[in-house]
C-alpha cells in the first residue's frame, strides 16, 4: 500500500530517498499500541524529568503526563497522587495581592523557580519582583486540574482573567509573560483556552484576536505564527482551535478559505503528517494536523491506516513513550501528542478527546458541568 501511494514521487530526484524512509518506517512499525509501556513512561515523567531545560515549563510537562494517562484510560494508576498533584498545581498560582498591585501578573507559573512559597497562605502578601504567571502554564494548569477532577474552586478566576487581558498586544496577539516575550499564535490559543474554560471572554478584545488570526492566514491557505510567517501545522491548529473556542470558525473564514485549508491539511499526510510542505513526517502532527482536520469535520478523508502505522512506528518498545521520528529518543510532548493522534482515529482502548482544548472528552464533560453550575449561581 505504501509504495503504491508514492508512485507519483518518481518525478523528483529526492523522492527515492523519501520512499526509502517510508519503507523503512513502515517495515519497522510495531503493530500494537504498547499501552502498558506508555503508562510506565508517563508515570515516570510525573516523578522526575531528565532535562533541566524543562524547569520553567514543569507544569506543562506534568500536563502531558496527566492528560496522557487520561487518554490511556489509566487515571486510576495515579489515584494516590491525585491530591498531591492538585495541591502542587495550586501552589503555582500567583496569589492576587490585596493591594491589587500584581493583578496583571495573575495566573499560573510553570514552577517555583523564582522563589515563591509552596504554602499559598504564606505566599500571599509576599510579593516577589517579576513573579508573573505564564499564559501557557495557566492554560496547562487549568486543563490538568480539570483532568484530575478538580472543580477549579480555588482558582482566582477574575484575577486570572485580568492577567490574560494584560498580555494582549495592540495587534491582537498575546505575549506569554508580562515582562515581555515573543508574541504569536501559540499564546493566542492559550488565551482562548483560558477564557473558554473560565467562561469569561472579558480576558481579551475578541475582535482584535479574530483579526490577528485571519491576518495570519498565509497564501498557502493555512496559518503561520504571525502575519506573513510560513504556514505551519502547529500554528494552524492554534488558529483553528481558537476560532472554534471563539465560535467564529465559519464567520471568520469564507467557504473558499475553508476548502483551501482542508486541502493544505490533507496534503500534510505523507504516511504520518508533516508540519510544512517538504518536511518529514513527525508524530506530533498526527495531533496538530489530525485535530484540525477533526475540528473541520474531514479527518475521515485522511488515510487512517498509514497514519496509525507511522505513529506506532515511533513508539519506543524499550522505555515506552513516543519520539518524533522512528527510532529516536522518546519525550513527554511527542508521547502525549502521539497518543492523542491515535485517539483521534479511534485507536481501541484510548479515551476520545475534545480536540479544541486538547483534553479528554470525559474531562471536557466535567468542565461543561462545572460551567453549568457557575451559570446557575449567577
Amino acid at each position: 500500500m505504501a509504495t503504491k501511494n508514492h508512485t507519483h514521487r518518481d518525478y523528483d530526484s529526492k523522492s527515492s530517498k523519501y520512499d526509502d524512509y517510508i519503507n523503512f518506517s513502515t517495515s519497522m512499525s510495531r503493530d500494537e499500541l504498547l499501552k502498558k509501556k506508555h503508562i510506565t513512561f508517563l508515570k515516570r515523567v510525573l516523578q522526575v524529568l531528565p532535562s533541566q531545560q524543562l524547569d520553567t515549563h514543569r507544569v506543562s510537562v506534568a500536563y502531558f503526563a496527566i492528560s496522557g494517562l487520561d487518554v490511556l484510560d489509566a487515571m486510576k494508576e495515579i489515584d494516590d497522587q491525585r491530591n498531591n498533584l492538585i495541591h502542587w498545581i495550586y501552589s503555582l498560582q500567583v496569589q492576587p495581592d490585596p493591594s491589587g498591585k500584581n493583578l496583571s501578573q495573575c495566573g499560573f507559573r510553570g514552577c517555583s523557580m523564582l522563589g515563591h512559597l509552596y504554602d499559598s497562605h504564606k505566599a500571599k502578601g509576599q510579593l516577589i519582583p517579576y513573579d508573573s504567571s505564564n499564559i501557557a502554564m495557566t492554560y496547562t494548569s487549568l486543563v490538568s486540574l480539570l483532568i484530575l477532577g478538580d472543580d477549579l474552586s480555588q482558582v482566582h478566576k477574575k484575577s486570572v482573567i485580568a492577567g490574560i487581558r494584560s498580555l494582549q498586544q495592540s495587534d491582537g496577539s498575546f505575549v506569554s509573560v508580562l515582562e515581555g516575550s515573543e508574541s504569536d499564535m501559540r499564546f493566542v490559543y492559550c488565551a482562548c483556552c483560558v477564557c473558554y474554560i473560565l467562561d469569561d471572554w472579558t480576558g481579551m478584545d475578541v475582535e482584535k484576536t479574530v483579526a490577528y488570526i485571519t491576518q495570519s492566514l498565509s497564501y498557502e491557505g493555512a496559518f503561520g505564527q504571525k502575519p506573513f510567517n510560513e504556514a505551519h501545522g502547529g500554528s494552524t491548529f492554534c488558529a483553528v482551535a481558537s476560532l472554534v473556542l471563539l465560535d467564529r470558525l465559519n464567520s471568520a473564514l469564507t467557504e473558499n478559505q475553508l476548502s483551501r485549508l482542508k486541502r493544505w491539511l490533507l496534503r500534510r499526510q505523507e504516511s504520518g503528517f508533516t508540519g510544512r510542505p517538504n518536511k518529514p513526517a513527525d508524530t506530533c502532527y498526527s495531533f496538530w494536523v489530525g485535530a484540525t482536520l477533526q475540528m473541520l469535520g474531514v479527518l475521515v478523508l485522511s488515510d487512517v491506516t498509514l497514519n496509525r502505522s507511522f505513529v506506532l512506528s515511533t513508539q519506543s518498545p524499550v522505555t515506552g513513550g513516543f519520539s518524533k521520528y522512528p527510532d529516536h529518543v522518546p519525550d513527554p510532548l511527542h508521547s502525549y501528542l502521539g497518543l492523542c493522534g491515535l485517539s483521534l482515529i479511534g485507536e481501541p482502548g484510548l479515551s476520545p478527546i475534545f480536540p479544541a482544548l486538547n483534553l479528554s472528552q470525559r474531562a471536557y464533560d466535567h468542565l461543561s458541568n462545572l460551567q453549568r453550575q457557575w451559570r446557575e449561581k449567577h
Partner: protein
Amino acid sequence: MSECNVDDAASNEAWVPFKDRPEWRDLKPIPQDDGPDPVVQIAYSEQFREVYDYFRAIIAADEKSERALSLTKEAAELNPANYSVWNYRRNILQELNKDLKEELKYISQVIEDNPKNYQVWHHRRVIVEWLEDVTDELKFTEKILKEDAKNYHAWQHRQWCIQQFSLWDQELDYVDRLLKEDLRNNSAWNQRHFIIKNTTGYTDEIIKKELKYSQDFIRKAPNNESAWNYMKGVLQERKLFDFPGVLEFCHELYSKQIRSPFLIACMIDCYEEMLELGKPKKEETLQKATQLCNELAEEHDTLRREYWQYIARSLASKYGADVSGDS
C-alpha cells in the same frame, strides 16, 4: 510548544562553588520550595541548584550589579529556556548601561548553540531594538539558515528586521539564491511572497512575472508542492480565468505525461472556477473535473483517495443539477 531537548553537556571546565567565591559571601541563597512531596522533579545538578539559589536571592533583593549580571550568564547557560533569567539580565543591562554590541556578540554565540530556542531569539530581538542597529542581522540569520534552511525562529527574526528597518532591497536576491540551492525550500518561497506583498504588491505585471518564475521551477520538479502553492498563492485574489496561461501551462505538462497530483489538482481548480463563473460547456467542464478527481483517487494520489472522491461528489452536487456524477 516547548522543545524537549536533553541538556547539553556542561561546557564549563572549572566551576567554582559559591562558598569559595568571596564576592558572594554577603548574600544568603534562597532554596526552592517545592513542597513536601514534589512532582515532575527536575534532577538538578548541584551546580544548577546553587546557581539558582543565588539567582532567587538576587531577584528577591532586586539587585542590579556586575555580579548579578554574571550570575544571569551562569543561569542562562544552565537553562537557556529560562525567560525570567533573560528578562532580568536585560533589566541589569539597562540599569548598568552596558555595551549592547557586546551583548549582541554574546547572544549570537548562545543562539548558535541553541538555534531553536524561543527565549534566546527574543533576547536578541530586544537588544537589536534597543541598539536600533541591524547591521549584522541579515548576515547572522543567513548563517543560522545555512545550518537549517527552514529554521522558523531565524525566518521570524529576519522578517521582523526587514519590516522594522525596511531592508527590502536585497532580499529577493537572497531568496533566489536559496531556491536555486533547494527548490523545495518552502520557507524561501514564503519569504518571496512576504517581500513582494510588502513592496510592489501583486499587480498584474508582477503576477505574470511570478507565474513564469514559479512555472520554471515547476518544470524542473513538477512534484514540488512549494512551487505549486506559491503559484496558486500569487493568484489568490484574482481569478485563474484572467490568466489563461495557467490552464495552458497545466495542459502542456499534462500532455507530456506528467501526472503530478499538484498539477492535476490545479487543473481541477481551474475547471471548478469555470463552473463557478458559469462559463459555457458546463457539463463538459464538470465531466473533465470529475475525471481528473478519479485519476487522482485511483492512481496518482491514492493516499488522498477519500478526499478526491469527496471533491468529485461536491462538484457534482454543486454544478451537476442534471448530471448524476459517477456513482
